[in-house]
């Protein structure tokens, strides 16, 4: 098992193998994301019982929570890819990092906007500087920074390493940011309900959430692989295997 993983890891490091292997994975990610998201949406929107305090607007949770999860874990993945690039000099790691950034930013944006929309019926205001939304906003700036840096720098190897470094430094800072924003909010917070009071959720409320989170992750795989494959083709355009591949089209 371990050896199989190691071989897979090394295979993925070669552009040609990456393209071939991910080509086979793509339909699985696509189907599972559609299935899981569809299931989660139906169950969450139509079947889950209403939250007593918040009314039906709590159903926004089924998008807000998965988006927030992904926003944070995608950044971790970006930083891990950065480490692989800088330490093991695997160029494919940069392709993956480049593919991760935009979808991470989208997830953060979704989390922010749905959080704000959810806030209106819950707090009576569109924006609230609560700890979670503020941390998300800072995370959004981190994503924008990485994407802007990649655009600004050239040649590609320099941009890759710079973005990797920024992602790694950012990851070290994320716990610091979360801690300080949490502390700042408890200091200034007027007594108000927090966004996710979690009384024990009945299974009918919890199950759709699970499906949605898994569905979001499957969608992440789908989107990242699509982007990464296009980027591989672009970067390796001059190589033999790409010519072979495209000749048959």
């Amino acid at each position, binding site marked *: 098992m371990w050896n199989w993983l190691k071989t897979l890891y090394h295979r993925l490091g070669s552009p040609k193998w990456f393209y071939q292997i991910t080509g086979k994975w793509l339909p699985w990610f696509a189907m599972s994301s559609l299935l899981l998201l569809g299931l989660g949406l139906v169950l969450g929107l139509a079947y889950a019982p209403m939250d007593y305090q918040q009314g039906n607007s709590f159903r926004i949770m089924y998008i807000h929570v998965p988006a927030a999860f992904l926003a944070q874990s995608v950044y971790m993945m970006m930083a891990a890819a950065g480490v692989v690039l*800088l330490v093991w000099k695997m160029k494919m790691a940069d392709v993956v990092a480049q593919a991760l950034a935009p979808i991470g930013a989208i997830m953060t944006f979704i989390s922010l906007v749905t959080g704000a929309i959810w806030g209106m019926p819950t707090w009576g205001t569109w924006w609230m500087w609560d700890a979670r939304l503020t941390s998300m906003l*800072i*995370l959004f*700036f*981190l994503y*924008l*920074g990485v994407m*802007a*840096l990649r655009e*600004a*720098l*050239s*040649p590609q*190897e*320099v941009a890759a*390493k*710079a973005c990797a*470094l*920024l992602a790694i*430094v*950012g990851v*070290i*800072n994320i716990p*610091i*940011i979360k*801690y*300080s*924003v949490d*502390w*700042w909010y408890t*200091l200034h917070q007027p007594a108000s309900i927090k966004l996710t009071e979690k009384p024990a959720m009945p299974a009918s409320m919890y199950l759709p959430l699970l499906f949605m989170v898994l569905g979001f992750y499957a969608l992440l795989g789908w989107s990242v692989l699509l982007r990464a494959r296009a980027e591989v083709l672009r970067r390796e355009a001059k190589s033999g295997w790409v010519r072979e591949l495209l000749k048959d089209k």
Partner: protein
Amino acid sequence: MNQINNEKPAAFCRLTPEAVNSSSLIGVFVAALKREWQLQVRRKGDLINPLVFFALVVVLFPLGVSPTAEILAPVAPGVLWVAALLAVLMSLDALFRPDLQDGSLEQLLVCGYSVAPLSLAKVLVHWLLSCVPLVLLAPLLGIMLYLPWQAQGVLMLSLLLGSLALSLVGAIGAALTTGLGKSGVLMTLLVLPFYMPVLIFGTGAMQAAINGHTALAHLALLAALALVALALSPWAIAAALRIAVSGE
């Protein structure tokens, strides 16, 4: 400029008029400090700019918001800290650019000394020359914003510690964007998320002092951030410099 094989090529990058033969980290660091001091102390314009910016921003607030103490005093800690933070950020933008443009940055990277102490020396001298004056100017501006007396001491201490952290972390952003011409906005975008915890604790310290509580906890946290930055950022700056120069 021949060197014997087992000596470090000190002639390639003269840090001092006499060749630095000691290859110890401390020796390199001290020599770099002296060099940076001589270089940076000459750029009077770069030293005055942050001070003027700091003062201008603070002056704009009463004009734009309200001149009354009821409105200014509660926001004084925040305004002072944000203005100081922006002034530090502004001063860092061109930290490495002169060295990149005249080629000495590349020399420093290839001369065989570890780049981390060199970077640290540069940032420390910058901090001494650009940020400490901000700290000294701050109480005056605090008076203009009706800052309560109890907070003045904490203002200076929090700015002293905070500006050290801000300079160190900001230098990483400055190093990454050295090669870019008008990178001002990009550097701000890169660095601002890391500045927010410092801002939060700095203003928190002052609020604690105003309310009569001890600001020790917040100041300790600020000191911790500064120490972590001191320990880790020189390596990140060195890595960023290598990356930035490799594209030239």
